[in-house]
Each structure stands twice: as structure tokens, then as C-alpha cells.
């Protein structure tokens, strides 16, 4: 009984997997297409990162089942996100040094 319920559950999600698959392929086409528009660099970076984040979100939410995951994994990912953000902001320290007027850096 429980096993059939599980089968149905997996089958129900199957459609979702295919939709995400097609969406990922379309978003790849969009991100490549946009790159041919030769937008200004800040705009191009913003658009490309938004599309990449949406794609990554789809993979994480549906393929990696994050949409219905246990709290403990959300906690791990929250800590990871915080440290990842710190890691990405670290290069800013170098520009800070420039502004504080250290010649030759």
C-alpha cells in the first residue's frame, strides 16, 4: 500500500522534472541570446546573473528536492550562504585600501 503511494508520488513529480528541464534549456538560450545584444557591462552582468540564479534555483528546488526538504538542510545552507557572501565581499577590502590612499597598491 505504502509502496504504491510512493510510486504515485514520484510519478506526480515526473511532469515537474520535464517542465524544469525545458525551462533550463530555454533560459540557456535566453542568456546566450542576450549576450549578442551587447548590453552595457553592468546591465549584462545583472541580466546574466539573474538568469543564472533562476536556473540554479530551479535545479536546487526541483532536481535537488530543496522545495520540500528538512529544516536541518535549510540551516546548513543558510550558514553556507552567509559565509559564501563574506567570501565574495572579501575582494572589496582591496578597493577600501585604494580609497584610504595607499600609493603603489
Amino acid at each position, binding site marked *: 500500500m505504502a509502496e504504491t503511494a510512493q510510486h504515485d508520488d514520484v510519478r506526480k513529480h515526473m511532469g515537474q522534472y520535464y517542465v524544469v528541464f525545458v525551462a533550463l534549456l530555454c533560459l540557456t538560450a535566453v542568456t546566450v541570446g542576450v549576450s549578442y545584444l551587447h548590453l552595457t557591462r553592468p546591465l549584462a552582468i545583472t541580466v546574466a546573473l539573474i538568469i543564472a540564479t533562476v536556473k540554479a534555483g530551479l535545479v536546487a528546488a526541483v532536481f535537488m528536492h530543496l522545495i520540500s526538504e528538512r529544516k*536541518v538542510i535549510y540551516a546548513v545552507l543558510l550558514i553556507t550562504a552567509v559565509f559564501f557572501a563574506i567570501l565574495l565581499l572579501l575582494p572589496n577590502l582591496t578597493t577600501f585600501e585604494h580609497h584610504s590612499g595607499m600609493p603603489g597598491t
Partner: protein
Amino acid sequence: MSETVIPYMVKPHPVTGIPNGKFGIWLFLASEVMLFGALFSSYVLIRTGMPTWPPEGGLSSEVLNVPLATLNTAVLITSSITMVLAWASCKMGSLPRFRLWMGATIALAFVFLVVKYFEYSHKFHLGHTPAHDNFYAIYFTMTGLHGLHIVGGIVVNGYLLGPGAKLWATDPEHFTNRVENAGLYWHFVDLVWIFLFPSLYLL
């Protein structure tokens, strides 16, 4: 000597609510985020410190092969869905279908590597080695580390398709969990490429 068995490989651990293997793979992926994060951070630092990018002028999309990288993006996305289907086949109790989809996943991983090989050999042919300039140093470091992750995925998925599949006969649920964990890793490798592709090739 008594055999030590890792507990809670099938049943969820009472504290975390998930099997230990799954918790372990998520912690591993968290460490992977930091590994690739450090490289992305270095990339931003080096790139913003350069007057032009690529240093030789032009656009990244002119220097690197966008059509091949787009093809590889599609290949990895497809391998992600075949991986999901391999796991879903286990869930629905069909080992033959698992074999089919897992075989497809591994084949697509090889396609990715072959395409990458052509990209790399063309760059080497032009003398564009990692030592050429910062652009190629970053390009080869990041895509190279990602490529090693693809190789790692082939090894694990190959094990599950080959000798590892014996577990199906004795403990199908445990085997299904292993496939799920390998899948989590594989989707993460796909996810890294989703960011690498625009960062290196398009911007």
C-alpha cells in the same frame, strides 16, 4: 572483530530527520560551495583589477567558444534530468530502467569531457595556456576544477551502475538513497556550470 555498520542509512536519524548519508552529502556540498566560492571571489578580484578583460582586448565571447559551451550547458542539463529519472526509476522499483538512465547520465558526462577536450586542445594549439595571462589562468583553473568534478561524478555513477548495483538485491532502499546522494552531487556540478558558463564565456 565485529562488523561496524553506519547507523541510519535508510531510516531517518531522529535528530536530523534525514538519513545520515544525505546529511553527509549536503555538508560536503556546503564545503564545495566554499571551494568554488573562493575561486569566484578570486576571479572578481583579478578581473576588476585589470584595465581590460580579457587582457588582450576583445570580448570573452570572441576569445572562447560560445557555441561549444552552450552545447555543453545543454549536455549537463540533460544529464541532470537523466540522473533524476535514474533515481525515480529506483523509487518505482525498476532496476533495468535505472541502468538505462544512469548509463545515459554517464554517457552525457563523457560527451561533456570530449567537448571540453576539443576546447582545451584548440586553446593549447594557439598557445593560450594557463600561463598566457590572467584570463586563461582563471579559465583553466575554474573549468579544470569543474572538469575534475565531472570525472568524480563519472566514477561514483559508474560504481552505482556497475558493482554498486549489487546492493539493490539485498537492500533496494539503501541503494536508492545512494543514487539520490550521487544525484545531489551531480546536480551541484551542473549548478556550478550554470554560473561558470555566463561568468567566463558571456560577460
